[in-house]
């Protein structure tokens, strides 16, 4: 902290991320001029909406230092529930409410088992995710549901535009603003961070640690239901493996963002999801086969976690110091 600096490290990181995104877009545009077209950029916002929502809920779980592997299963169950109700002639809003009403309790049960009964998070969420994914087969035995989808107004969630931008993009922005207020500008958000940092200290400070953990898992389930709702609106059919596609991008979004901005937060998740979405979109526009996309997301995630991990960075700094004894320290500071 000896060097004088005008910009705070946080602002510097933000500027770095913006520069990185600009550089990615510039490279793709140079390789494929269609990248900067209106059609493609609006596809980016649409793709980002579903992944961004799933990552949003996961952020809360990561903030309380837990893992949730159940949200793909919960999303599949909710997808088939919503599809089944719409196919049976119920209204869109009723179906969405039912999807949430079936997904959120599963998340709260996870949170109860992990927060109150203190069971290990990974095991419990693998188990409950498996149960939820199994229950998703109860409706049709695994077949896609698409009856009544056009007349119900479900597809409008994907197709409607305001000012030439998809309604799902507004939806995503609204969700992120709301989540940002909750996590960064409310007592509850501070309690979540305290729970993650030091549950014992948080407990003695009067924070209801267990309730915080339970709430985080409930939020994760809720946003995964909303994410899968956008997925079925985009594909026009609900099936049992819709949820599984959410797992990788959600984890990559949260952890890449946390690596880029130095900790899990709502802006970090937004940045992480945005970087991953524009990269994936660019590669698919360049004609890369679909089966590379998971590997690509995984590679980006691994790269982000390795390069931005404080321990790895410290070692890099030590390496740099030994190679260049007079290298200015400030360049490598986090």
């Amino acid at each position, binding site marked *: 902290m000896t060097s004088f600096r005008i910009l705070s490290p946080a602002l510097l990181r933000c500027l770095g991320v913006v520069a990185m995104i600009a550089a990615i877009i510039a490279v793709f545009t140079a390789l494929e001029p269609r990248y900067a077209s209106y059609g493609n950029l609006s596809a980016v916002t649409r793709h980002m909406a579903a992944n961004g929502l799933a990552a949003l809920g996961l952020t809360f779980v990561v903030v309380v*230092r*837990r*893992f949730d592997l159940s949200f793909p299963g919960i999303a599949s169950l909710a997808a088939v529930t919503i599809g089944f109700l719409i196919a049976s002639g119920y209204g869109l809003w009723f179906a969405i409410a039912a999807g949430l009403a079936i997904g959120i309790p599963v998340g709260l049960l996870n949170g109860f*088992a992990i927060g109150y*009964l*203190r*069971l*290990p*998070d*990974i*095991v*419990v969420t*693998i*188990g*409950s*995710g*498996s*149960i939820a*994914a*199994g*229950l*998703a*087969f*109860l409706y049709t*035995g*695994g077949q896609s549901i698409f009856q009544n989808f056009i007349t119900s107004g479900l597809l409008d969630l994907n197709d409607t535009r305001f000012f030439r931008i998809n309604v799902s993009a507004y939806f995503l922005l609204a969700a992120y603003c709301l989540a940002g207020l909750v996590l960064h500008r409310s007592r509850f958000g501070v309690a979540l961070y305290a729970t993650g940092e030091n*549950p*014992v200290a948080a*407990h003695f400070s009067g924070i209801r*640690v*267990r309730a915080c953990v339970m709430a985080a898992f409930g939020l994760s389930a809720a946003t995964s239901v909303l994410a899968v709702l956008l997925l079925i609106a985009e594909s026009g059919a609900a099936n049992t493996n819709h949820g599984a596609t959410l*797992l*990788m991008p959600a*984890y*990559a979004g949260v*952890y890449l963002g946390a690596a880029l901005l130095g900790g899990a937060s709502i802006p970090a998740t937004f940045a992480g999801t945005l970087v991953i979405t524009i990269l994936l979109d660019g590669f698919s526009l360049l004609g890369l*086969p*679909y*089966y*590379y*996309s*998971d*590997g*690509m*997301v*995984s*590679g980006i*995630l*691994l790269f982000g*976690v*390795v390069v931005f*991990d404080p*321990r*790895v960075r410290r070692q890099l700094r030590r390496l740099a110091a030994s190679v260049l004894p007079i290298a200015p320290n400030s360049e490598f500071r986090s």
Partner: protein
Amino acid sequence: MSMITSSGRLPAPAPALKLVGRWWLLLLLIVAVGLFTLERPQMIEAGNLATILRSASLTAIMVLGLNWVAAAGKIDVSFMQVAALANMTAASLLAGGAGWLPAGLAALAVGGLVGALNGVLVGTARLSPLITTIATGGICASAAAAIGRGTSIRIEDAGPIGELLSMTLGPVPLIAVGVALLYLAAWWCQEHLTFGRYVYATAQNEEAALEAGIPTGRLILILYVLSGLFAAAAGVILVASLSSGQPMIGASYFIDGLTAVLVGGMMIRLGQPNVIGTLTAVLLLAALVSGGALLGWPDYQREIIKGALLICGVALAVWMGRSRGQANGRG
């Protein structure tokens, strides 16, 4: 992963209950096989038992390495994709005219390499095991699909491994005998070598283990390499058993493997994955699949049962563990 350190409010169970708690999984296996036999006597016919043993053997090989990774307090969720990648590597080499030995060795080398990558990232760079192995698993899955350009690769001849698979020792498939010996050796290593002590010490308190002179970083690296090697071995056997390379070997191995290791860890050594528990759990899952098929249960019912088994198992283990005055917060 961390647990809150306030004491549990549940009462301590009685000693007799404790014995049941220690061996409940074996009891459950016997009860399950008994119930299935009551409903469908074909369950314990020699042919059906051989089928159960064959499928259990394959899962058992795949998760032996994972078992110790979990015992050391880490997790490896990439094992299924490593098996798929090894499977596709071997299949593509065989389809290209290579012999079984080079193809198998190449597949094992790929598995070992991915394991080493996991091990360096988790053991040396000390990254989160879950995030690291989710990411390496995703890369393996993509690589496996890329080898076959998104589809499977057919193999004409199942080769020497195919012959070994079809061999039997009396009524028992040879591979089951091999796996039994392998697990016996693994049990001996775990109970009688310092290796086993080191693994469980690492799970209890990694910092303290390091201070006490255990090279935890190197130990974790070795465990992940073993996990990669065993998963790859199962992948190579699957080439012969399926006569093809499948880029998506089937998500069922994923949930089966994790359930077997984590539920198996709820037996004998409460809250600590161990080879005997894992083997019992693998047999239980194979019996469930076979019995469920005989009774005509659809696939998803078995998934629900497995998930419920996993949660009940971990709840039981945490309860039992807490009564001993320690909360095993492994996750």
